[in-house]
């Protein structure tokens, strides 16, 4: 089976190459701004280099990928926002089946079989897809390949009538340790009354050597934290060995992001909050009273 892969990020592109190798030979499309990746990409059969296309050109990419896809059975894209934006458009151009955020993929009797989370994380759907298929792959599910040097072939860019023009923008602030790689996470929710109070969570995370994540409203709505740190179905999925959820109700869309955590602790004033269903240890208390004491005691045993 022949697989075409593309991502805006090199880390995710490498994960796609690995995912694709489970199905067959992978060609990785690389745009002009990504030319520097050529010496670093391993495991792909070939690199398709398009020197006349920039990865910020969404309409151009849809056209380019749809044009190249005719030679492939499967197109793999990343599950970041830019990647997901392409999936439906490319699939529809090709008259292909589509799925996003798949966690596994295999071929059975000429069909592609994929698994993905649905119903806000309450179920996993096993889907049978006709070929060709366009798929985005869940982040962090495949390790980058370690060997195999691809050949490089240049491809031309199609001419595109552009209706979208980028007229501005700014980078968002970067966070330190990526949440999905952290061993210990303190997740905060709307139970915190103001931004300054988050220091209670940072102090706890500090003494544990962990990082602080948040529910969506805190990051996206109140903007108390960077957007990369929101946990859940529309944010990051985490898998720490210890997760302490403080002042978050545990709505399904958040809960979907914490399922792979090893030990979960919940601190919430409401004993009926759904988060207690998702927790190994529940503390029904006011975070403003409990966190300072917990942090102090941890400091004592850690000798700090």
């Amino acid at each position, binding site marked *: 089976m022949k697989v075409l892969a593309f991502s805006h990020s090199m880390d995710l592109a490498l994960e796609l190459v690995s995912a694709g190798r489970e199905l067959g030979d992978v060609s990785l499309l690389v745009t002009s701004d990504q030319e520097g990746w050529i010496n670093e990409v391993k495991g792909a059969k070939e690199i398709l280099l398009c020197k006349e296309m920039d990865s910020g050109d*969404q309409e151009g990419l849809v056209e380019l990928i749809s044009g190249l896809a005719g030679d492939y059975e499967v197109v793999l894209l990343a599950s*970041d926002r*830019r990647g*997901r*934006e*392409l999936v*439906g*458009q490319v*699939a*529809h151009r090709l008259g292909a089946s*589509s799925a*996003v*955020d798949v966690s596994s993929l295999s071929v059975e009797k000429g069909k592609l079989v994929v698994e993905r989370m*649905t*119903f*806000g994380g*309450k*179920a*996993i*759907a*096993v*889907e049978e*897809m*006709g070929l060709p298929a366009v798929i985005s792959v869940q982040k962090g599910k495949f390790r980058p390949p370690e060997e195999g040097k691809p050949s490089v072939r240049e491809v031309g860019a199609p001419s595109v009538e552009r*209706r*979208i*023009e*980028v*007229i*501005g*923008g*700014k*980078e968002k602030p*970067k966070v330190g340790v990526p949440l999905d790689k952290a061993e210990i996470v303190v997740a905060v929710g709307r139970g915190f009354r103001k931004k300054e109070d988050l220091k209670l969570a940072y102090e706890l995370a500090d003494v*544990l050597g962990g990082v602080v994540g948040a529910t969506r409203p805190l990051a*996206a709505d109140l903007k108390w934290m960077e*957007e*990369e740190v929101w946990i859940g179905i*529309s944010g990051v999925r985490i898998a720490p060995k*210890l997760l302490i959820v403080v002042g978050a109700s545990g*709505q*399904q869309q958040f809960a979907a992001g914490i*399922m792979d955590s*090893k*030990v*979960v*602790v919940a601190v919430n004033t409401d*004993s009926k909050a759904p988060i207690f269903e*998702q*927790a*190994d*240890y*529940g*503390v029904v*208390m006011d975070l403003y*009273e*409990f966190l300072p004491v*917990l942090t102090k*005691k*941890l400091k004592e045993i850690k000798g700090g």
Partner: protein
Amino acid sequence: MDIAVLVKQSLDVQELRVDQDTGKIYIEDAPTKAGDIELNATEEAVRLKEKFGGKAIALMLSTWGASGKRQKEAREALTRVLAMGLDGAMLITGEGAERGDTYMIAKALAQEIRDKFGLVLAAEGSEDNFSGLLPARLAAELGWPYVAYATAIEVEGDYVKVTRSLEDFEEVVKVKLPAVISVTQEINKPRVPKLVEIVKAKKKPMDQKDFSPPVEPKLTIRELKVPKVERKRIVIEGDVEEAAEKLIQALKEEGVL
């Protein structure tokens, strides 16, 4: 310019019961509703039409079959968005829609949109499946540009200026109309309709249309499984000091401290 808002009849996932032991998912027992982010799309449509004129209509293609309960819920979901200020709604139902994948649904919806609307607003993802595929496919079917994850929209003549939120970047784009745009929850605060608006909404036009599958689906769901998550659910008792000590002890025993 008239605006179409895509409203999906989604399963209320918070209310959905699953049984981890038997693997049973009680889909039939769970209610359906308009997705939360679709309320944001509705709010944005209402604000845009108040500012720039035109009509804003909700489109719903129900994929839940002909059962009376689901039909009633579909009309309730549409009444909800009508009460927020939309001018009308169209409900498409019928045999075959249950098997619909995004390929089929996009083709069917495009027939109701082409030549009738200048802008389509949708949610970044539906409440129950959250794939975000439908608006992208619809744009491709219509041959219109597609911009996802909008956090602000302004109409400027034949264009819309859209601010959109990507993981690492906030981008501002100018998009030629007609276009399909999906919004995030952060774009606005949906108004909560008053009782009188809900009463009035029941009198607003709601067209019913029969669905006939324009194409065969490309994807089928073979199985729905319940992920196994086992949690101890131990409640730590005592006063603040005791609780903190007990928790630390438990975490030591777990080997995570």
